[in-house]
């Protein structure tokens, strides 16, 4: 279909030019040109400034910032910690993601549907909320679990300390393991049972089949998932700051935040550190891509795949126990404790009838100035960002699939690129680019819109691309041949057909934009606070109950929209098209 598209357009062109000699080229090219310009402005221009900033511009030019960034011991420590975090979460994602995927995809374990849905729930919960929940759960002495353990075993202090490197790895790991889980799950579902049966007919035992048939087939998915988990963990400013700062552990994103947040801001050093973080992610993504390409075992043939659930006998029960405890810690406990806190007068008191209140919701949703403004701004920003991103994504996908324009591949690459860029890095580039002439929008809500569009345009582009691909260009050609203008063809043929796909694209951008933290924290100003900022700031002031109420509200919104996406796209959670966030 893709091959036909450009040829079709070329064939159709003269006929329409004759039918509608004026206007068509104008509108088509203006719209497409605008899209291209906007993309270059929002993604290309900030990245350029990242480079310029690292060279010391605009104040001076030289290599001293780069040299400083790479020689200061603080920065070196941040780099080492960041690598340790990535390695830890990558390994953890395999250790828990693979058994879970096996259990839900291939075993006859009870409750596997529930486990699957709860993994998805832990993935869509913003990770900084999980981090807050874990302070309530595993604060070294007063955390609910530690108190329980102290009471049970008569200990003087809590045995588990969340404020440690392993604490950070754990909290981030139970979020990012979803990558490994979903990729492995999909791969396991694609392994045809006939392969396993052949092995067994040749005399292989069950464990031999698993080890020598299933494992090699899904190995690329496992490795790919582990790398994606590791890369995502690099970028998660929220939990790194919320747990890492008290633990005295510095990571690259928190380091970048501090170089700009302390006064006077050190732009050059922040840019140089951002480039370092980009280098890490790009290396990780390249590794992942290279690995997948080299070791892709195609098992999907022309016919459908038949899978078989394996009976695990008594082993089902320990497997169920393991799976349930993973989702308990990744979804049930954090969301549960936030909900309990949101409804109790004082979270340190035990839950009882007299300790239940709606006051915190009232404060969060109606009275607290910053909180109310945050909710309104987040709704506005997420809606606008999703609309712009979908428009841009549609333009990029259209150019890629329906034209032969030179440079459209490059454009497509530019629109996908931010997927590999941590929010902190995007924010530094956007700050440097839009703090000065010709577009000084720093301090206004527009800079947040620019950041969200730039960060999440890849999600819209991918989604629009997938939905255009499903529509035969012959339908548009038919429209044009019968005399409709280009715009009319778009309005009457392409958009109506692509609408469900574009709506999903809209939601896929809206969801992460609604709770974005890592870029917002560097770009917001008085009056442009978002929900994430309200949560972060109120937490600073120790108002944990109001924070929890806001958190429950946020999770509620995100969850409802995710369910809507699921329903619209008519697929299971396993589609892999789950939103990214920071």
């Amino acid at each position: 279909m893709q091959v036909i598209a450009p040829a079709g357009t070329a064939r159709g062109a003269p006929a329409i030019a004759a039918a509608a000699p004026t206007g068509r080229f104008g509108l088509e090219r203006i719209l497409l040109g605008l899209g291209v310009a906007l993309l270059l402005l929002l993604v290309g221009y900030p990245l350029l400034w990242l480079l310029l900033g690292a060279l010391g511009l605009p104040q001076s030019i030289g290599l001293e910032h780069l040299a400083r960034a790479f020689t200061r011991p603080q920065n070196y420590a941040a780099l080492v910690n960041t690598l340790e975090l990535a390695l830890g979460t990558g390994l953890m994602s395999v250790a828990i993601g693979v058994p879970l995927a096996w259990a839900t995809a291939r075993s006859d374990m009870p409750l596997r549907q529930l486990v699957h849905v709860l993994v998805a729930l832990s993935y869509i919960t913003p990770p900084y909320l999980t981090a807050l929940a874990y302070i309530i759960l595993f604060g070294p002495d007063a955390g609910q679990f530690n108190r329980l353990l102290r009471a049970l075993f008569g200990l003087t202090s809590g045995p588990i300390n969340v404020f440690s490197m392993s604490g950070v790895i754990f909290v981030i790991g139970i979020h990012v393991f979803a990558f490994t889980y979903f990729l492995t799950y999909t791969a396991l579902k694609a392994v045809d049972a006939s392969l396993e049966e052949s092995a067994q007919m040749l005399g292989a035992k069950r464990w031999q089949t698993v080890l020598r048939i299933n494992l090699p087939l899904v190995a690329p998915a496992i490795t790919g998932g582990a790398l994606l988990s590791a890369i995502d963990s690099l970028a998660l400013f929220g939990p790194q700051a919320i747990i890492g700062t008290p633990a005295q552990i510095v990571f690259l994103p928190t380091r970048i935040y501090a170089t700009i947040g302390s006064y006077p801001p050190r732009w050059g050093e922040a840019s140089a550190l951002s480039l370092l973080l980009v280098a890490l992610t790009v290396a990780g993504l390249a590794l992942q891509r290279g690995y997948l390409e080299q070791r892709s075992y195609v098992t999907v043939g022309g016919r459908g795949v038949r899978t078989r659930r394996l009976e695990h006998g008594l082993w089902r029960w320990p497997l169920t126990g393991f799976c349930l405890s993973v989702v308990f810690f990744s979804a049930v406990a954090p969301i549960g404790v936030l909900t309990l806190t949101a409804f109790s007068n004082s979270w340190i008191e035990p839950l009882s009838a007299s300790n239940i209140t709606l006051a915190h919701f009232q404060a969060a949703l109606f009275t607290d100035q910053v909180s109310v403004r945050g909710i309104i701004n987040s709704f506005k920003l997420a809606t606008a960002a999703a609309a712009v991103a979908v428009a841009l994504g549609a333009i990029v996908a259209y150019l890629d699939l329906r034209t032969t324009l030179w440079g459209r591949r490059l454009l497509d690459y530019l629109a996908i690129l931010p997927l590999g860029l941590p929010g902190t890095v995007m924010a530094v580039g956007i700050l440097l680019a839009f703090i000065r002439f010709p577009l000084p929008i720093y301090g206004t809500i527009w800079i947040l819109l620019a950041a969200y569009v730039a960060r999440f345009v890849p999600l819209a582009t991918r989604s629009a691309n997938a939905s255009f691909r499903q529509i035969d260009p012959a339908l548009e050609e038919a429209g044009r041949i019968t005399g409709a203008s280009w715009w009319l063809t778009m309005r009457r043929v392409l958009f109506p057909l692509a609408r469900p796909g574009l709506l999903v694209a809209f939601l896929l951008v809206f969801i992460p934009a609604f709770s974005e933290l890592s870029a917002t924290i560097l770009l917001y100003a008085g009056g442009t606070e978002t929900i994430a900022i309200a949560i972060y700031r109120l937490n600073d002031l120790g108002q944990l109950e109001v924070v929890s109420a806001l958190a429950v509200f946020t999770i509620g919104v995100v969850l409802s929209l995710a369910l809507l996406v699921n329903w619209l796209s008519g697929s299971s959670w396993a589609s892999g098209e789950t939103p990214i966030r920071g």
Partner: protein
Amino acid sequence: MPIARRSMIKGVVASCAVTLLRRQAKAQAAGPEDAAQIDLEKAKAEGKVVLYTSLDTQIVDAINAPFTQKYGIAVQYFRGGSSDVTSKVLAEADAGRPQADVVDASDLAALLLMKERKLLKPFKSAAAAAVASNLRDPDSTWITDRLTQAVIQYNSKELGSAPPKTWADLGKAALNGRLVYFSSANGDGAPRIYTLAKHLGWDVVKAMAATKPLRVQTPQIITQVLERGERIAGFLQNDNIAWRSKRQGKPTDYLFPAEGVPTEIGACGLLASSPRPHAAALYHEWWMGPEGQALLVKGGKYSSRTDVAPPEGSTPLSELKLLMLDYAEYKRDKTKILDQIADIFGGEWGN
């Protein structure tokens, strides 16, 4: 083709931006130079005032409500740590997009830096008569609004009978793993740690660090951590938070060590680029005036005004030995000092 359009679009955008910048520049009218020149009508016409502050939101809300009620001028504020406030003011100045009219931070070095960069506007406040001369700028760009003392706060259930009484006590082995202190990732906790080191020696600070204290990001959280027994003693930099916790009947108490207490000067000023200079001056006078300062005191802060009493039930400042910081020196050596503190405590200090 796309190139031509793009440059056209850029041209349009650029001209819009220039117009915007001009409008901004025009908006920076001088406004009143002293309290007597404040024009109430002009202030009301400006409609609102934007405050950047590091003061606790509960106190800010209490000060703002009667101001808005009295003058019909809304107060919009950004609240963050002193470093957040300062880096925002500096970044906005770099961007040529000033948002704030009035700035307040509990780190005088920050105000000195703003003054050096010519971001503050000289303004003769009526409050000057009530504030000691060493607590205000001879050039009238800033004036102290509050004095915040560091205290030892502790969980009274755990340490009620024998609390740590001196700063040196906080470094004793008995508090290993039981102490809590604060600094944001931007180094907001550093000035008072440095004051302590400067007056009592670095060994006191190093001993504290050796107990492996829990670090939290704001002073409010120190108190929260102590209230729920997560830690039993804290090097709390804000006496007002300890005061509030005790008054609310939470299981905490606090004391001012006899060897002296590090004092931090919180100061405010008007921004030279203020888009609303009249409302800003009016608000400044409310903030510094007897009524505004009384509300500050009600929140547990010590006012800089000599005619305003200390918070109910607190020791008067005259009975405390205050340890002061040379802020000009701190501003000059900030990077070096932060490096030193980061070496001792580890973690992120924004250095």
